[in-house]
């Protein structure tokens, strides 16, 4: 178990390094200079791709230095913090230093502290619905396999998931919160300040994101459940005289959940990495919208931070799923 964990953490660390290096490379060798945004802001938009001012800004931001030495500086900042000087101004950036946003010259790590709880709230609410609605309907469909209920559930998930997600999100926002007030206005409140407002403000987003995402869980859980319902040990459970409920939940679902846990771990990681459409459409200031806006203006430190969050989430979720697996299935030994 311990050696497994060490091995996985090391390989996970390598993956995170590769991802961040890739982002750096894109910015260093990309067609558009990342220094342009800062230069424009300082000169009231009189900074073009060819103006001499831009060269100065590129030099100040370190884009004239070798890429690897700049990456080294960034990595050192993440580990122990550093002082960043842009021109005459020096910014103190404590560890974990993710740099300074080119948009407003604030610390990226401070912004991350504001954005992350928004995305985390979305992810937690939506993923709970993935499991409750998705696995719930999947189990119902599997138990009545071939019946009208089954066909209705399966075909409705297919219809629903073939509509583009942004359309679903946009239409539900327009009809349910703007042209009527069936749902409360979508807005983010900190859970720590007011849990009730937190929940009501995000209710519609959770439902839209959760129901849309749950359709694949319905199909997945249905397949997994059909398989486990036909297992010999389910027949054994029935032959013991257990109630239907105990057989289905205690014996069949128990094993049907194992494969579901695998995709759930990855899905949760991707939700953490940023629900771009959702945050953009509902105007929620989370990681996804933050990263998207930063990409438009080549704000390297922010893009770097958002990709770091996604990479860490995916790597972390994979390790957690593997550990969870060994608890769910005693035949699995971690090594």
């Amino acid at each position, binding site marked *: 178990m311990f050696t497994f964990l060490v091995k996985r953490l090391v390989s996970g660390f390598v993956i995170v390094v590769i991802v961040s290096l890739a982002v750096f490379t894109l910015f260093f060798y990309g067609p558009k200079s990342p220094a342009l945004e800062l230069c424009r802001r300082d000169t009231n938009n009189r900074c073009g791709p060819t103006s001499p001012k831009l060269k100065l800004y590129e030099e100040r931001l370190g884009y004239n230095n070798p890429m690897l030495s700049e990456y080294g500086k960034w990595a050192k900042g993440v580990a122990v913090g550093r002082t960043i000087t842009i021109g005459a101004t020096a910014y103190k950036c404590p560890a974990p230093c993710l740099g300074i946003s080119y948009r407003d010259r604030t610390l990226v790590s401070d912004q991350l502290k504001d954005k992350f709880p928004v995305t985390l709230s979305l992810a937690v609410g939506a993923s709970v619905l993935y499991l409750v609605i998705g696995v719930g309907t999947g189990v119902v469909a599997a138990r009545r396999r071939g019946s009208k209920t089954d066909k209705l559930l399966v075909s409705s998930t297919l219809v629903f998931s073939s509509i583009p997600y942004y359309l679903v999100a946009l239409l539900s926002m327009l009809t349910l919160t703007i042209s009527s007030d069936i749902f409360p206005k979508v807005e983010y409140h900190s859970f720590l300040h007011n849990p009730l407002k937190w929940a009501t403000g995000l209710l519609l987003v959770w439902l839209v994101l959760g129901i849309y995402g749950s359709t694949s869980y319905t199909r997945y859980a249905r397949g997994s459940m059909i398989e486990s319902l036909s*297992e*010999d*040990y389910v*027949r*054994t*459970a*029935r*032959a*013991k*005289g*257990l*109630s*239907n409920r*105990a057989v289905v939940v205690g*014996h069949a679902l*128990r*094993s049907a959940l194992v494969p579901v846990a695998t995709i759930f771990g990855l899905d949760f990681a991707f939700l953490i990495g940023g629900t771009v459409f959702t945050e953009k459409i509902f105007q929620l200031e989370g990681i996804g919208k933050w990263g998207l806006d930063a990409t438009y203006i080549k704000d390297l430190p922010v893009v770097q931070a958002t990709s770091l969050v996604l990479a860490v989430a995916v790597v972390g979720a994979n390790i957690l799923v593997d550990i969870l697996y060994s608890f*769910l*299935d*005693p*035949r699995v030994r971690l090594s």
Partner: protein
Amino acid sequence: MTTLMPSPTFGAGADGGPLLAVENLTVQFPTADGLVQAVSDLSYTVEQGKTLGIVGESGSGKSVSSMAVLGLHDAHSARIAGSIKVAGEEIVGADERTMRRLRGNTVAMIFQDALAALHPFKRIGKQLGEAYRVHHPDATKREARRRAIQMLDRVGIPQPDSRVDDFPHQFSGGMRQRAMIAMGLVNDPALLIADEPTTALDVTVQAQILDLLQDLQREFNSGIILITHDLGVVAEVADDVLVMYGGRGVEYGPCREILVHPQMPYTWGLLSSVPDVHADPNARMIPIPGNPPSLLDPPGGCPFHPRCAHVHKVPGDLCRTALPDLAPGPRGGGHLKRCHLVDPEQIYQAEVLPEIAPDLSEPGGEQ
């Protein structure tokens, strides 16, 4: 060990009837391709303390008929007709509550392939304890665990108080089958159905498991149905034998009678297919030609006629046109056979036995 009171449903003997009486049982499965006639018009009885061996090839309806005794067929996908009485209580058409009270309690089942039949994620002790507690709702978890250890000890699992916390994959094949038997017996069932309990095991373990079943039967006085395709197993433990073919009983009677004086060509075929280490090296093993019949579209007349070598001995094409009754043969003594042959005994002694057991067929060699 058997200090528990017998359950009230355990009324065998009270009305003098048998522990299990199956009468004219028919099980059909409607499918997209047509009606599968898995079991047709099957009747047999099991007395308390006795063992019935049900023998036949795969797909002959052995398991399907026994699962009907536990009511394990899905009401939507199976059509069941006829009568199954457990200790006098009719269970065909009984509601789910009645069935749940019987399952695992009055009637328990041991499945083949214990690795697949035990839940891979649950500890052995938990699975046994669960079987106990479902019929003893007042028992605490601690009592259920004690009972599980006691049963594991009884079926010969070493160090039961530590092995009780193992998962099925940590047991060897023979130990898993023992644990399966322990689970079947945890509520002292009056009737135990063992569905090929030794098929997946090697021969030495097979013998141990059969001995164990017989010991436990003596101790608990349960009736046992032993489903198998192995006549050697039947010879060792059964009191009565039912030979099934194509979903029907084709020969039924006391074990010794059936094995020594078989009167149905299908039974001869089964006997010819059994290897015997003690046998004369000149003895031949003769496989039954062809395949078991389709249950979707069973052959007319006697279901065995397409594979039977003796059809020409019956006058008037009777085998192809008329289904023989399961009727008493010339030897009497409760020996029923479903065959048109007039004197099967003579054919067996003259034609079959010399081929498969030359030493037995010599004059005076019959035991």
